[in-house]
């Protein structure tokens, strides 16, 4: 049994590293297309991780969000952006490299540092509440959060209206 445990944790660690690598890729690639793909990969890996940590509902949510999000961005990047000229691309690559060159080194360093910190898990987790089903909690117990989420949605809507909508040329 111990073997499978180590195998599982190894797999999880691998997935986490993959997640971090994809995230870095989205930031560092000069081409927008590649960054969108990187985004898709990150959310996919995240969903897998959630399934592995046996919280199916959260994973499903993540999947639906990612499903909705990625195609929208995908289409917009393809339709709205045009290809950069070669020297434009080179210049962008240089500029990207200058800003984020050190990022991987930094991430590794932080990772190593966090390894040293030993956090004793010396506490007894309290018994889980009886119906812990997400649906029930969300709908019956936490109404206030619903209101919050609706507000965020409306806020987002106005954000789009204000920021992205073409202004008619002010007189």
């Amino acid at each position: 049994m111990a073997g499978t445990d180590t195998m599982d944790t190894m797999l999880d660690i691998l997935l986490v590293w993959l997640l971090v690598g994809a995230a870095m890729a989205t930031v560092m690639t000069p081409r927008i297309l590649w960054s969108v793909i990187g985004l898709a990969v990150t959310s996919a890996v995240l969903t897998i991780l959630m399934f592995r940590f046996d919280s199916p509902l959260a994973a499903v949510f993540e999947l639906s969000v990612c499903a909705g999000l990625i195609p929208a961005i995908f289409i917009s990047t393809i339709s709205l952006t045009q290809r950069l000229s070669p020297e434009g691309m080179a210049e962008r690559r240089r500029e990207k490299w200058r800003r984020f060159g050190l990022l991987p080194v930094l991430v590794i360093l932080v990772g190593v540092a966090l390894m040293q910190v030993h956090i004793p898990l010396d506490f007894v987790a309290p018994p889980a509440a009886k119906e812990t089903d997400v649906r029930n909690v969300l709908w019956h117990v936490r109404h206030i959060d619903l209101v919050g989420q609706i507000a965020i949605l409306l806020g987002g809507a106005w954000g789009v209206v204000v920021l992205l909508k073409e202004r008619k040329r002010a007189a």
Partner: protein
Amino acid sequence: MLSLLILVPLAGLLLLNLPFTPAMKRTAWAFAFTVALAQVAMVLVAPAAAWSQQGFLAQYFSFGLEAKDLTRVLLLAIGIVMATTLMVGRSMITDDRQQFNFVNLLLVSIIGMNGVVLVTDLFSLYVFLEVTSVSSFILIAFNRDLGGLEGAFKYLILSAVATVLMLTGVALLMLVAGGTSFETVAAAMKTSGGITISQMAVGAFVCGLFIKGGLVPFHGWLPDAYSSAPAPVSILLAGIVTKVSGIYALVRLATSVFPASGAMNEVLMVVGAASIIVGALAALGQHDLKRMLAYSSISQMGYIVLGLGCGTPLGIVGAVFHLFNHAIFKTLLFVNSAAIEQRTGTTDMNRMGGLGSRMPVTGVTSTIAALSTAGVPPLAGFWSKLIIVIALWQAHDYGFAGIAVLMSVVTLAYLLLMQRRIFFGKTSPEHAGVREAAAGVVVPELVLAALTVAVGLLFPWVLNTFMLPVGGIFH
């Protein structure tokens, strides 16, 4: 009754936008204004009974809302600042389409802020923080000019960092306490408050709040966001948003939820002192009015946190009182800057001069606000700073008390500098024709100035009715 504070704006939002009839548009501003004024009236007038949770809605929705005296003070502040922002917004934003959007966004942010103040659950606290942040991002970038976008972007990025920290905090607390409502967490903290995990969680959550509150190590976004935002928005931001999202949550959690540990107080004191010093010194060197006021509000935030950090009930009272006062006179200062911007079109102090004779009301009110910020006696700022200093001295933190007092001299210095550059001296030619600001701006100026002076003079009454019960949290 409490839930109305959140539901009414939400319902308003929905109603205003559904039918798309032009008639509704005009009433939008009026509706928002009545909501804000109703909130103020509710706090001042409403009988104690209204504050309890029961109401016909109770049986349908289980809103874990409750309002102690601390929240009443905050609600009052939110109401006042919201009303001012609306009035200034109405006179500054001429295009009615824009104005409609502006009002809607304000309604969203009022929901968020009321939520933060009223909620009793850690996670919903986070949710409503997000609501306010979203509406603030958009508001900062309202004019879609380069500065606005850049400021919003910075705020967005740093709020993201804050979110990460807060969520880890909530997750860990969930792990330790099993639930996220204040009571369960408080109970858990009493028993297993000392273990590393809970300390880490508390630390993470508090740092998230520090970022939101714009205190020194985390204040990077604040000057850019404030100075590049359009005038009415910077009034809202400076007046109440950072206070509610950053400081109020800190006060609420430090007093009732998290364990009162010496280390936490130490952290608060150090962060507070650092932000006072850095804020004041940075403000000294500025030549852009709004950036200077931004740094000055960082410095004043530092005072509040310093008051909080000394842990005694008097310290809490001082902190909350200063929070309320600061909301008033900082808004007044930003309204003044809005008035100047409206008339002279610039906030660069070097190009201003001698506006005192041109814009007398703005001049007088800004002097009152400046003196109150610096803590000159007859005005409100003095009393709150005095209580903080007394609390610090009683807690034998002479060093911090010394810093607090000395820095108020520097505060006075840069505010006098501002006064001299803008209002005294000879009028620069380009502003020769400047007349007094529009009515929409002058009225809030007068109201706020009157409020500052009133709180200053009627200090004893204010202290008894509002503040001392806040100190009661502990007994």
